[in-house]
């Protein structure tokens, strides 16, 4: 499948998800069995996106700063994001940590 096809399929699907209850299903309330899992979609998906990207180096699990500075930088970012919601501050802190570790090791 071409990348253009992928992007448009996601776009159409995302629109239909947004439209769902407003335009199609109407005013029926969402049943509990659907509502409860949806609550965990964001934390589960986002953690699943972050973890492999920062904990794996060339497919191998490593947190050693010399080979994988991203693990420690991500930890720093998590701690700062916990304290502030400022996007620019978190990005800067994470990037600076990576650059510093790359420079030291």
């Amino acid at each position, binding site marked *: 499948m071409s990348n*253009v096809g992928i992007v448009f399929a996601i776009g159409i699907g*995302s629109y239909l998800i*947004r439209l769902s209850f407003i335009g199609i299903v109407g005013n029926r309330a969402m049943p509990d069995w659907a509502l409860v899992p949806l609550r965990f979609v964001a934390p*589960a*998906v986002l953690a*699943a996106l972050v973890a492999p990207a920062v904990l794996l180096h060339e497919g191998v699990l490593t947190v050693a700063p010399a080979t994988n500075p991203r693990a420690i930088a991500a930890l720093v970012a998590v701690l700062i994001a916990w304290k502030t919601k400022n996007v620019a501050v978190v*990005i800067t802190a994470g990037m600076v940590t990576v*650059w510093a570790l790359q420079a030291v090791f």
Partner: protein
Amino acid sequence: MTHDPSFRRTAFNDGLRAYAPLVIAIIPFGLVFGIVAAGSDVGPWLGGATSVVIFAGAAQLATLQLIDAGAAGAVVIATALVINARHLMYSAALAPGFREFPRTARFVLPYLLTDQAFAISIVRFGQVEEPVYRRWYFTGAGLGLWVTWQISTVTGIVVGAQVPGSWSLDFAIPLMFVILLVPTIKGRPELIAAAVGAGVAVAAANAPYGLGLMIGAVSGVVAGVVALRVMR
């Protein structure tokens, strides 16, 4: 009750004003997305087009990441739609407030539905029942975010084309996800969902077709549901 244009403008401006403080979070996110898109295999044009076609930051970033990692097309689509599944909740919660909108508005405005537009509107819809006011309030908040997102994405793409690869700017992707992730950890079940999602995604990183993320995400959701049951 008749509504002159100034009534609509007031409602629109109220929505826009409620969104305004969030600009501080949207602009850096859009810039980073644009910079990442410029350096991605998807390229600046299609990468930039995702801001109009998909218009959902986390799903857009995941799409680029998965395509760059060589994931199968169907897996990329399914994963992005799982990420956007939370909009089902928003759509269900807003549906009663949209009921009296004209048909066209009920089909066009959901395109502007985002985490932020939802959060802003659901509060106001609880205070004001007037459908014309609600419609233009939502439009003001939604369109404000849309315009900010497009401008910051394009700016990021232009800037990103000048950034050398040695700056490790691809690391900004997981950093963006960290920023989105942390506020979702509202309690222990969410923490368990995130921890299991992370652990399984790492363990399944070499799964075929780029399915690792999906396997991790589904495991995390199941873990969260189970944790909630057990703790209740």
